[in-house]
């Protein structure tokens, strides 16, 4: 009954929000020079942590807090390995991912089938009734509304504040921080923790609002889409927001077409985010890489040497 466009656009926001949270978190982390390939794991930790605490306490908001904390805690494991122990960032990220996959499957068994008070959609009075825009933007859960302001706020903090300058300097010219009497490690720890917390929020949004359930491995690759998204968006929070909706639309297109009787190949649609990222990399090539924080370039270079 609803038009295809509205259905896909509403689905893009609903399905893109968790990816946006994780992508924003990864942007913060990477701008400080730490790439976290375990973002998928942080989302899983947030999804289970959030669901478990929501089930135990009976309030989804306790779950939201727990989801953020779980994501941050896991990201800090990665932080200790790469900041303190100078481990290879790629190897550490994957280790953290598999740790999270195993632990959430193990501990999550008790919460499969548990019921919670979910974060239900709340229709914004007035705005929610606007044809087209209403269903797309104003009939969502509270974490989706929060994401509308999260992206611009993170952009403003990164680009316009002293905290953002410190963080970016840690990623670009860590020696400049040292010269000015700052220590690099605490700044990077803070960025990694914030990144993990946002990924955890993304996971909690999946389990508490979208799925209203916990199942093992339920993040199903969205954390990897988020990491690809950060490159796609050239480390800019507003472009992360736009990109997450684009990737969300790719996820929503299949069901929307099928529900109208069209045959589609879901596998082909599922690779769209990665194909788009490859296309951006191919088209922009050098320019994209130049947008990368200097600290990250060192990570890529050292990986190449090793």
């Amino acid at each position, binding site marked *: *009954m*609803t038009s295809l466009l509205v*259905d896909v656009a*509403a*689905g893009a926001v*609903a*399905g893109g929000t*968790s990816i946006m949270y994780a992508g924003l978190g990864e942007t913060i982390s990477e701008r400080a020079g730490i790439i976290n390939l375990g973002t998928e794991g942080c989302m899983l930790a947030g999804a289970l942590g959030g669901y478990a605490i929501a089930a135990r306490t009976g309030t989804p908001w306790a779950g939201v807090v727990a989801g953020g904390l779980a994501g941050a805690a896991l990201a800090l494991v990665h932080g200790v390995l790469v900041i303190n122990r100078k481990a290879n960032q790629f190897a550490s990220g994957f280790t953290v991912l598999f740790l999270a996959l195993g632990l959430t499957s193990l501990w999550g*068994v008790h919460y*499969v*089938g548990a*019921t919670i008070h*979910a974060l*239900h959609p709340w229709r914004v009075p007035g705005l929610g009734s606007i044809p087209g825009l209403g269903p797309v933007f104003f009939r969502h859960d509270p974490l989706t509304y929060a994401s509308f302001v999260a992206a611009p706020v993170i952009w403003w903090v990164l680009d316009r504040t002293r905290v953002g300058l410190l963080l970016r300097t840690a990623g670009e010219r860590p020696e400049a921080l040292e010269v000015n009497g700052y220590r690099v490690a605490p700044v990077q720890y803070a960025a990694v923790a914030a990144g993990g917390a946002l990924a955890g929020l993304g996971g909690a949004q*999946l*389990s508490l609002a*979208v*799925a*209203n*359930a916990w*199942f093992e*491995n*339920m993040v*199903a690759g*969205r954390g990897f889409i988020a990491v690809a998204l950060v490159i796609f968006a050239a480390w800019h929070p507003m472009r992360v927001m736009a990109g997450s909706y684009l990737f969300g639309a790719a*996820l*929503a297109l*299949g*069901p*929307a077409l*099928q*529900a*109208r*009787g*069209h*045959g*589609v*190949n*879901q*596998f082909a649609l*599922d690779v769209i985010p990665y194909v788009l990222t490859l296309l951006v990399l191919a088209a922009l090539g050098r320019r994209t890489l130049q947008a990368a924080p200097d600290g990250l370039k060192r990570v890529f270079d050292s990986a190449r040497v090793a």
Partner: protein
Amino acid sequence: MQLKLAGITLAAVSVLAACASAPGGCAATGTVAIAAPVGGGTVVDAAGKAGTGGSAVGFIMVGPKDDYGYNQAVYAGSQAVKAAFPDLQVLTAENVPEDDNAARVMEDMIRKGAKVLFATSYGHLDAAKKVAAAHPDVVVVEQGNSVTGAMPPNLGTYFGTVYEPMYLAGIAAGKATTSHKLGYVYAFPITQTIDNIDAFELGARSVDPQATTYVVNTSSWCDPAKQAQATKSLLSEGVDVITQHQDCTATVIKTAEAAGAHVVGYHSDASALAPNGWLTGAVWDWAPLYTDIVRTATAGQFTGSKYNANYRVGYKTGTNPFVMAPYGSSVSQETKDLIAAAQLRLATPDGSPFLGPVTDQDGTVRISAGTVPDYATIEAITYFVQGVVGKLPSS
């Protein structure tokens, strides 16, 4: 008595003869219900001792025993065997991969005294064959797959016909819908799923000629966020009854319930998740079949029995592991009576959800009027019937 035995022997010999002349050997004769003598003699002498003399029964599962789905149903069945045979030890192994590890776990169970083994996943068949060949005294049965060619005397496969209860659930859906649009969230276009979708639509159509079933696939057995999106897309198209074929089922049920739609379940009774919208569903109950297989095997009557074949059960043969879930509060007595009558009809020789004429989406008659397709034909259906809206994914 003597006459009776002679009669049985005769019947068994004729069955054997039929096997020898049938292409593909005995594998397709799923209804041989009596012990077949091997090389003459009386039934008791010739029954073979495979499956007897053991102190244990073993079950291997591909997943965890508490997955609220396939493997949990297997575990529940194994516990029913334990209750029915207090003298036998029931061994269970979870998360057994579909490779040589399965054979290793079964060998271990044999060392612990098992003479009857249940390999309960589709991919456990190769290991089951191997173990059966190495241990002629042990009965091995596999769940869901089928053996092509000659069936070894101590091996068998078994499965139920889930499309029958889905047909009955389709009746409940057809009576519940007001938009005449039903929705089906499925994972992959495998034949078992296509059978379910077709049977669901055929059941709905039997009570509502305008009923249509809209299908959306997720390309994953358990991706709850995709399930939520698929359900929302169906609801936005005006669908007011939702069902599914997924491994994890809670998200679809909760999403439909929150939108005020009706729900037909799968795998387990999830009526608690949808107190308003729940209609019914297909759920598992392996207890009668497992118990009967163990009884047959431990009595030394496995070889030549109906279980020493690719055994398929439905309402005709009884012991279908798929049964109807309890009805929700919105299901009327009239609907319940219609379903009860349909179930009786399915149990008659001419009864089948796919009783011809069956027409596909293009209007081609695939099963001619009056034809009752056999299990093998139904398990090979690769088309949607008329009334299903949507296409199979292109590959």
